[in-house]
């Protein structure tokens, strides 16, 4: 099971993952919290939510966040996938989830998730991470907090340079 690091109150900590990633081929496991593909969510999400389960959706990099917009208030997690670290669409997906759709639940980075992108991810609104590079919570936090200043407004609400100067 991959490590899960969560950001809460400005601190990064390794936590137990309550959610089980369920692929489209898996039988539905008898657990309280699942993360499903968008297709499986559209087929089975209603029933699972009605049964009191916590449900998350895994959004692939070629899937539009707009397709989730009506369901967002009911979702505990949106797991945004990095098929390769170079595929930067997830940064836009996370930004839109936070800034355009006002999503307050967990936005989790899954897939090819490595430390050098921690700062970018946090700025775009990710608050949970499944590192694929073996990073510890401590290493992840250090990388994410590397820069004392930032130059643009982003989903994390940090004051950019021009506000610090004002």
């Amino acid at each position, binding site marked *: 099971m991959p490590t899960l690091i969560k950001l809460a109150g400005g601190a990064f900590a390794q936590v137990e993952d309550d959610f089980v990633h369920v692929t489209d081929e898996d039988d539905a496991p008898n657990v309280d919290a699942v993360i499903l593909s968008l297709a499986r969510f559209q087929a089975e999400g209603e029933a699972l939510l009605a049964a009191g389960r916590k449900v998350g959706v895994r959004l692939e990099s070629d899937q*539009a966040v707009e397709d989730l917009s009506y369901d967002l208030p009911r979702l505990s997690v949106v797991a945004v996938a990095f098929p390769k*670290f*170079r*595929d*930067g*669409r997830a*940064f*836009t997906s996370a*930004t839109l989830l936070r*800034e*355009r759709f006002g999503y307050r639940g967990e936005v989790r980075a899954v897939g090819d998730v490595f430390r*050098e*992108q921690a*700062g*970018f991810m946090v*700025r*775009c609104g990710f608050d949970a991470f499944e590192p694929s590079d073996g990073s510890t919570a401590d290493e992840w936090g250090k990388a994410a907090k*590397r*820069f*004392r*200043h*930032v*130059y*643009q*407004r*982003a989903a994390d609400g940090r004051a950019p*340079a*021009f506000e*610090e*100067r*004002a």
Partner: protein
Amino acid sequence: MYLYDALDKEFLADRSAEFRGQVARRLAGELSEDQFKPLRLMNGLYLQLHAYMLRVAIPYGSLNVVQARRLADIARRYDKGYGHFTTRQNIQFNWIKLADAPDILDQLAEVDLHAIQTSGNCIRNVTADPYAGATAEEVDDPRVWSEVIRQWSTLHPEFSFLPRKFKIAITAAPRDRTAARVHDIGLVARRDRDGTLGFEVIVGGGQGRTPYVGPTIKEHLPAGRLLSYLQAVLRVYNRYGRRDNIYKARIKILVAALGAEEFARQVEEEWGKIDAARADLPDTELARIRGAFATTPFETLPATSAIFEANKAADPAFARFVRNNVKPHKKSGYAIVEVSLKAIGHTPGDATADQLEVAADLAERYSLNDLRVTHAQNLVLPHVKLDDLPVVHAALQKAGLATANIDLASDIIACPGLDYCALANARAIPVAQHIAQKFADADHAEKVGELKIKISGCINACGHHHVAHIGVLGVDKKGEEFYQLSLGGSGAEDASIAQILGPALPADKVAEAVDTLVDKYLSVREGDERFLDTFRRVGMAPFKEAVYADAH
């Protein structure tokens, strides 16, 4: 000019520390070359044929004297005593040891220089008119907007892993010295009838395998809305640009596939959803940045200079230099001086450490501490008094920097080619040297007039051959270097893509063929037509006939 404050400096220090840690992990074997590659590329460190190459950003091609001296120092201490200026106004050091790279970045950071976004699939270091703040042509100072974009794009959280690299050029003059129309985004500042500043936004130009002159997707973007509009363009590109094929991943391919109109519609739709109050730069910050460029301490001078006129009359070499390398300044009594890095027989764009120091000294004494880099791989002293031109010229002559060939046939743009680059099919530098030799006679070169020759060692087109009046492209034919010539391109305000002349030629025939093309031009030109104008009037046939006549 803009000076980094404590905040900008702390940012660079953090960046340098991050890279030092990454190099340490690589040298200790904790990172494989595969894992390290994207990290070093994010800091401008490439692995070339013979060594690492470090590309240092020169934001909008503007250097102060301390920075220029530091570059000279680095060339001497860590390279073989020279650096290479690029078509994106940056400088490359070609002989770097990996273990030295963190120290070099520290030393750059001390003088507010860095290698951020000189590589990788991010918004690259923005380029601008090298005559900014000096030419009377401009409707605003493009450095203001370049600095706005520099800050906004620096480690942009959403746009640092785009489908492919992303290049922005800005000019505020009708004469385009930035090749704005062959950039991912070209911004041309204009004032409308009531004086309101705006940008013509050109998106999806480019070179490489599929050259395009970019279409204009917005005629007059209000200047204050620049950042939100850029955000919209970049977001549409980041979401929908192709990622399945590196050769089809630039924004030009998306714009061409959708059509400029549909692409513009998608951008407008996204732009409409962006909260302008959050995305656009506050007026106070814009005013702070603008203020930094408004303090050039010009003196009030007469429009003419007796010393200048006397030297021009007495010294033919100086007069030639003035004709070709000295351009009008917006302030009376001043001139813009181009310093050619295209001495006949030398590598285009290379400057030795000694030459960099001479340029820095001259900038300090005679050009208000300001030195620029042009996209044509030359330097500019932007603010020289007419009175000082003779002494500046003499100092440049002594340093081998007074070649009077700006925009003439020997002012050749060339990529590093197979002498350095792992991607190249053929050498570019020796071809440039052979062609330049044909125009070593300065009278002949002046008679030929403006002629932009550009050479790329492979289809990636770093030498801009697609937008050359005469373009030269190196190709590999069964292990032998061949060169394909093309005619009629332009990267300027009259941008066009060059057309292929005919079958590729062996290396030893290229300079001869260029000579033949020029002879043909001289025999058919009318009035003061440039080579490009003549080509556009008479077409390809006479030139093709001239070069390939022997083969008939």
